[in-house]
């Protein structure tokens, strides 16, 4: 104490600025980051070295296979054989034969679809992706019009373009026997059917003391639209008929995956509602249906669709092989879809159901206007994941003799012009890359939606 008082002339405040001290030697910079993240302990250092080894031992042969040793030009197996095998490459060469993939590329996309008609497939692809893209972007406008286009206009257009249209519809009720196989007979029978449905609906609505007018009007509109769509498929546009046996490659993969998802979504909603229904028989049937399809492998489903399904149909009725596979895939994926949607229905708080009921909404009004819009929004990621699974599962149709993308690749191995030891591994790496791009981008989209829909508040 006394010491300070004695030296009152000493200043306690520094007069000049201190120069900056150098940072601690290992406190920053890349070296520090490496040391802290990769070599923090002995175990960590060993793990880092193993990881580096794995990366190097995969990356270098892969780059070698594709870029350095890969053959991209040439017209025959000679360019992809070593000298010892009678080819042009030096001995010990091991590279991808991408010249073969390039030659076969059109077949991998279209299968054996007639070459002059392939523009039809192109138009379908463009239409599909052009109408899908704005659906996936949340900010894009005209969602409702887009969905209607996707669900009503696109399927009919795609059907007419891919098969050629000009379907020979014929009568199925009274006029069918009177007028024989003709489109007018079909129209007459269709009108009879419409009248019968309207009559039943009128009776029910009058019986429950409701107003029949709007019900009849909506039935009429739906039936008229359906008739127009059916009529379009019957028109002869001059497109040659292309049988499904000639379809193949990516075309078949996309047809199966998209049809599967389009059928399984509504069917899945119905099954999910059925499983949560209070009616015991409806619930029992839904549970049996869902658990049956989820419990068996898709291969047996496809076997059943191709071998047993024709047995259950009356004599003379025969489905196309592709349609049979589609039925199997749709049933299978709708069971999985039902479980995804059930998860969404369970996530909606009870208050929403009770609030809707308290407002006096009927069951379908409650589901259609209150519960399902919320539930479906939550499960968009789950739906996309189901679609990824379905997309990968389409490869199984090659087991029952359809040529999807992988099946077409497998079929191209029989061409002796390109038979080399590296053919299989080249084709498979190409196929793996294509599937990876499709599935990975869908997965990223699903994650993006998950983040977007995660509002942070949970009920």
């Amino acid at each position, binding site marked *: 104490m006394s010491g300070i008082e004695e030296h009152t002339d000493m200043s306690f405040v520094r007069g000049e600025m201190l120069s900056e001290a150098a940072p601690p030697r290992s406190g920053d910079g890349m070296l520090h980051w490496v040391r802290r*993240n*990769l070599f*923090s302990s002995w175990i*960590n250092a060993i*793990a*880092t070295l193993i*990881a*580096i080894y*794995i*990366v190097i031992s995969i990356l270098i042969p892969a780059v070698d296979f594709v870029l350095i040793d890969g053959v991209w030009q040439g017209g025959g197996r000679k360019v992809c054989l070593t000298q010892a095998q009678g080819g042009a490459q030096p001995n010990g060469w091991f590279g991808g034969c991408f010249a073969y993939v390039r030659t076969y590329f059109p077949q991998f996309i279209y299968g054996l679809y007639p070459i002059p008609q392939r523009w039809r497939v192109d138009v379908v692809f463009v239409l599909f992706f052009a109408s899908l893209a704005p659906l996936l972007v949340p900010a894009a406008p005209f969602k409702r019009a887009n969905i209607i286009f996707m669900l009503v206009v696109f399927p009919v257009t795609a059907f007419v373009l891919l098969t050629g249209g000009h379907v020979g519809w014929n009568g199925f009720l009274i006029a069918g026997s009177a007028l024989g196989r003709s489109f007018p007979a079909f129209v007459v029978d269709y009108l009879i059917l419409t009248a019968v449905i309207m009559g039943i609906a009128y009776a029910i609505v009058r*019986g*429950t*003391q409701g107003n029949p007018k709007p019900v009849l009007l909506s039935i009429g509109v739906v039936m008229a639209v359906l008739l127009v769509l059916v009529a379009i498929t019957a028109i002869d546009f001059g497109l040659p008929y292309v049988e499904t046996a000639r379809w193949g490659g990516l075309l078949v993969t996309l047809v199966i995956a998209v049809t599967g998802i389009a059928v399984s979504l509504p069917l899945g909603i119905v099954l999910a509602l059925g499983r949560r229904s*209070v*009616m*015991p*028989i*409806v619930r029992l*049937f839904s549970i049996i249906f869902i*658990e*049956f399809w*989820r*419990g*068996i*492998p*898709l*291969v*047996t489903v496809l*076997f*059943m669709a191709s*071998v*047993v399904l*024709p*047995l*259950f*149909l*009356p*004599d003379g009725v025969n489905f196309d092989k592709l349609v049979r596979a589609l039925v199997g895939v749709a049933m299978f994926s709708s069971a999985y879809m039902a479980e995804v949607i059930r998860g969404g229905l369970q996530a909606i708080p009870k208050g929403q159901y009770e609030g809707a009921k308290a407002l006096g909404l009927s069951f379908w009004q409650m589901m259609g206007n209150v519960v399902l819009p919320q539930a479906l929004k939550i499960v968009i990621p789950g739906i996309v994941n189901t679609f*990824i699974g379905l997309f*990968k*599962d389409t*490869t*199984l149709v*090659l*087991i029952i003799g359809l040529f999807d993308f*992988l099946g077409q690749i*497998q079929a191209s191995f029989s061409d002796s012009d390109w038979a080399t*030891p590296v053919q*299989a*591994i080249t084709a*498979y790496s190409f*196929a*793996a890359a294509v*599937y*990876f791009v499709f*599935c*990975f981008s869908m*997965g990223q989209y699903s994650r993006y939606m998950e983040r977007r829909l995660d509002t942070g508040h949970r009920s």
Partner: protein
Amino acid sequence: MALQDVSRNAGPPKVAFFNDPKIRGWAYQIVLLAIVVYIVVVGLENMFANLRAAHIASGFGFLEDTAGFSVSQALIPYTQGDSTYLDVYLVGLLNTLLVSIIGIVCATILGFIVGVCRLSRNFLVRGVASVYVEVFRNIPLLLHIFIWYFGVLRLLPSPRDSVSLGVFGLLNNRGMFVPRPVFGALSWIPILAFVVGIVASMVLLRRAKAHQMRTGERRPIGKWVAALVLGLPIVAFFIAGLPLSFDLPKLGTFRPTGGTTVLPELISLFLALASYTAAFIAEIVRAGILSVSTGQTEAAYSLGLRPRTTLRLVVIPQALRVIIPPLTSQYLNLTKNSSLAVAIAYPDLVSVFAGTALNQTGQAVEILMMTMLTYLAISLITSAGMNWYNAKMSLAER
């Protein structure tokens, strides 16, 4: 006024019977039942008519007939021309179970390792694990199988230039040739010793646990358990006079002789199933570990538990509760996916029974029904066990 009205109509409201939701519900259900029954009856009628027209006798009598084809791998005795279709079914089922079980074991181990690596603080380790998961789960399983079978195993040398794996045998494009154990007459002694050791150590562990519960004292019994489980069988093995020897495969002129052959189909199917499913299991494990809130770890640390003890007693038991249900469904998926064996002709249930036997007999309905019911039974039994486990493990919440 209003009050009076309400009290007068206090009874149930009078509604016409067709407006009663209960009666309506039953009406809908009866209509649904009628439709389903109609479809089933018409379908069955068509089926019997079609079968009659094709001169196929229905029924399961064909199971007693002898099968005139050979099977490349059978875990039970099977001879062509002597065994029945029922034997074919059993051979296929056992082969399915074989590849499923070894696939499940390896997928679980690999999946847990990758899942933990995904959470590593080491940037490189995390990156490699993430790339593994993304690449393996975004490529169809069938393509995995084809890559292993046609792409990799076909590139192996011919039997003449087999790759030697040392004591593990030989590897070539006909498969893997591994040593076959030959059991001597007294080999039951070490097996019995092993069983005795396990039972004894279980008793020991229970008593030690009871002691700890009573007094809080831990008995050091690790050494004793090790001695009982490992030491006892080894000692018994020597006492019985080394009753086990191995028949080693040797290079032959066309194919190696001796030993046991592991089919290339089995190897590629197993590798594809295990590596594909491991990617999904890794994601499940990651989600499970992340689901345990950091507060749990912090609380354990503040109680003075060491990191390893925290992991063992606090984090893992809680993570397992989240991990086990989706893990079971992955196991079921692997078992169902093993049916892709048909694409490379590994003799599993679908390939050998729903494939070859179906083509030989033409009994499509019966054979596919048996196959489907078998898979369905496996699924339902596993889910039942799963539900039991879930009920046992679920948190007793207030």
